């Protein structure tokens, strides 16, 4: 530790400032709910499937409840009240009836309310128990098949748009050395306010995230894990308008990691900030319970902002993501904080700048796995150069002890990865880790030299920025384009109509369970 000679006082101050900036947002999240949070609750309570048009019953049910009593009380009580009144055993059947217009929802009081609470809590507890069982199952499989022999874990994407093409590609990638497979989502999905159903074959530049696709891929990778004697992890996205539901489905289908960032949806999908922060807190509580590692999205900022000028915004965001994650119950080992190798390769000493940035993240968050993202922005159609850059990215990853290495593809600027791109990329990783895996021993930034100075400067700028944000508020900073140079006012953006402040009697059995120590 301590290659950068960071001042512990400055580090402590940075964390303290992050807490100060983050706390009001936590308070906001604790006092609001969203349609997706409520749908996630219903999924945990057992509502499944979709209507003939493909609209999930959870959507139909929440819509019906909102139409009758609004969102601010939470849907659990009205739903379980109606269930009792209708004398039904199955919440999915209730949803179907509600969709047909044959059920009315109300806010019970007194005994009925207590009963509805108790019933909903029991149903949700059963869902949470399923998540617990999947977590235990993961632990068992990891024990049986083993973890990858070394860090960083090798993370590869598949993105054909067709789950049945994705599966053999993912298996081939695992065989070729991938420790983590991420199934990229279709371009449109993050703005869908529902989770599609069933196995799908028609995504654009990615495959729809559905419970069935999760299940199919996890089963395929379990097969690969058995074959390879190494537990192969599966990743998807708890991001977009359905973040909380994605988290619940991931827990239920034993996904192992989820892309989950506190600001990505705001900045890059123009989703309303409040919606995002509320959804995010709930989804992280689920991830914490499910033993899922989250991957945050700071790497994305550097695709729109300059990686040198705005390096400190990455640090600020990491500190905020850490604060929010801890608050939601995630442990350090679950924090795949993001950063990226995105400095213009023509900048003099770019590699040493990358080393400084990567090492800064490493030393600020010593117990977090850290997700290290390959060059994307400065990749071009020159695939020969592309593979070379990826090699130096891998080198920095190895020299700075990154935890999760997202494997760069030489065709980054051309196509979603081909089978052969992935093979070439893995060969690249194997070469670099094999040839230079131990080079970090000999990498000793000169005291007071280029690398140390740069890291200290970035940390200093991060502290300054946090101070400035603290003087106003995080929502203001976001509105002003502080991150990724995107301006996102708190009263704009998609999904705002799906947000409600808690009423006095708001009840959410899932939050109640998840906030109690397990």
């Amino acid at each position, binding site marked *: 530790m301590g290659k950068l000679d960071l001042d512990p006082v400055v580090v402590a101050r940075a964390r303290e400032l992050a807490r100060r900036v983050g706390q009001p947002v936590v308070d906001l999240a604790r006092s609001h709910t969203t349609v997706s949070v409520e749908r996630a609750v219903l999924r945990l309570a057992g509502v499944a499937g979709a209507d003939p048009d493909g609209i999930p019953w959870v959507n139909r049910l929440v819509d019906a409840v909102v139409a009758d009593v609004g969102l601010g009380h939470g849907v659990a009580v009205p739903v379980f009240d109606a269930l009792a009144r209708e004398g039904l055993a199955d919440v999915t059947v209730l949803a179907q009836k509600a969709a047909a217009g044959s059920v009315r929802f109300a806010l019970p009081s007194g005994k009925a309310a207590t009963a509805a609470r108790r019933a909903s809590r029991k149903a949700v507890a059963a869902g949470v128990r399923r998540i617990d069982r999947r977590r235990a199952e993961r632990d068992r499989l990891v024990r049986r098949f083993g973890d990858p022999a070394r860090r960083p874990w090798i993370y590869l994407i598949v993105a054909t748009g067709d789950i049945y093409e994705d599966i053999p590609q993912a298996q081939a990638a695992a065989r070729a050395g991938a420790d983590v497979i991420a199934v990229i989502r279709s371009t449109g999905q993050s703005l869908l306010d529902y989770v599609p159903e069933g196995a799908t074959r028609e995504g654009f530049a990615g495959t729809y995230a559905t419970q069935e696709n999760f299940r199919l891929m996890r089963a395929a990778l379990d097969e690969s894990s058995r074959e390879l004697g190494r537990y192969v992890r599966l990743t998807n996205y708890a991001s977009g308008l359905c973040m909380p539901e994605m988290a619940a489905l991931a827990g239920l289908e034993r996904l192992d990691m989820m892309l989950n960032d506190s600001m990505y949806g705001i900045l890059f999908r123009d989703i309303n900030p409040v919606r995002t922060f509320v959804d995010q807190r709930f989804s992280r509580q689920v991830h914490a319970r499910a033993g899922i590692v989250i991957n945050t999205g700071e790497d994305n900022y550097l695709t729109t902002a300059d990686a040198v000028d705005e390096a400190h915004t990455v640090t600020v965001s990491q500190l905020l993501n850490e604060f929010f994650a801890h608050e939601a119950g995630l442990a350090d080992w679950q924090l795949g904080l993001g950063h990226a190798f995105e400095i213009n390769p023509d900048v003099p000493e770019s590699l040493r700048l990358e080393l400084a940035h990567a090492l800064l993240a490493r030393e600020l968050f010593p117990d977090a796995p850290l997700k290290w993202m390959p060059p994307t922005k400065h990749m071009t159609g020159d695939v020969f150069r592309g593979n070379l850059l990826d090699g130096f990215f891998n080198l920095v990853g190895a020299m700075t002890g990154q935890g999760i290495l997202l494997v760069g593809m030489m065709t980054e600027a051309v196509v979603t990865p081909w089978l052969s791109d992935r*093979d070439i990329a893995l060969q690249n990783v194997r070469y670099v880790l094999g040839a230079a895996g131990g080079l970090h021993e000999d990498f000793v930034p000169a005291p007071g030299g280029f690398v140390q100075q740069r890291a200290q400067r970035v940390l200093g700028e991060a502290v300054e920025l946090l101070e400035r944000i603290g003087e106003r508020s995080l929502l203001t900073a976001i509105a002003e384009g502080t991150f990724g140079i995107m301006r996102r006012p708190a009263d704009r953006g998609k999904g705002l109509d799906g947000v409600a402040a808690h009423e006095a009697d708001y009840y959410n059995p899932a939050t109640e369970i998840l906030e109690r120590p397990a």
Partner: protein
Amino acid sequence: MSGGSVVRPYGDTTGDGMVQVSFTLPVPHDKRAEGAAVQLAAKMGIDPAMVVHAKQMGDGYTFFVVYGRVNHLVDLSAVRVVERDFPLLSAREVNTVVKQRLRRKLSVVGACIGTDAHTVGIDAILNVKGIAGEKGLEYYRELTVTNLGAQVSVPELVAAARRERADAVLVSQVVTQRDAHLHNTREMSAAFREAVPAGRRPLLIVGGPRFDESMAAELGVDRIFGRGTTPGEVASYLVHALVTGRGAAR
């Protein structure tokens, strides 16, 4: 280098015709697979073809690298490209022409349509910041720019164009998997054809790194801009097409 209009690929000697190719075939690696790679290379006109690398991936795929000589000639005189057929103006010139000849501000509406959320390209053209040292269209005093951002649906776009009385609509498409960019562009141009009488349709421009610039007619748009476009080119084209050019009466 060659003065003539017929050339061949150049490896290390004029006329040697050498090229490099790589591809994957869905077969396990064995001699037959290498033969198959040679067959494909032959069909591409490579003869002799040297399979210099073959690597099996998973159970049933093999990646090949092939070097060899193609027997095709490239006839430069037969190349048809969309050359810039308008003068390149400075920002000041653009402003002057619009002011003097159009006598009102020229209204431009931009967006990334469909599910595409890659705004960096269109922002590079529209935002003041610009790209490659050139300021974007917002910087031009005589242009009014409305940038709708990402993932705009076609109906939203048509409505905005109406509302802003757009002279030109600028659409960006970066995601190309399964020809998403072509589908979205066709949908967009059809919508404008349907919604707006021919004479009053705004100029339709699309851009993105993977477009073939010669497909404008086919896609129902007026112009396509590809990789490495700069704002100045777009502004100059706007002036040409809407103010000074022959078709500008539209």
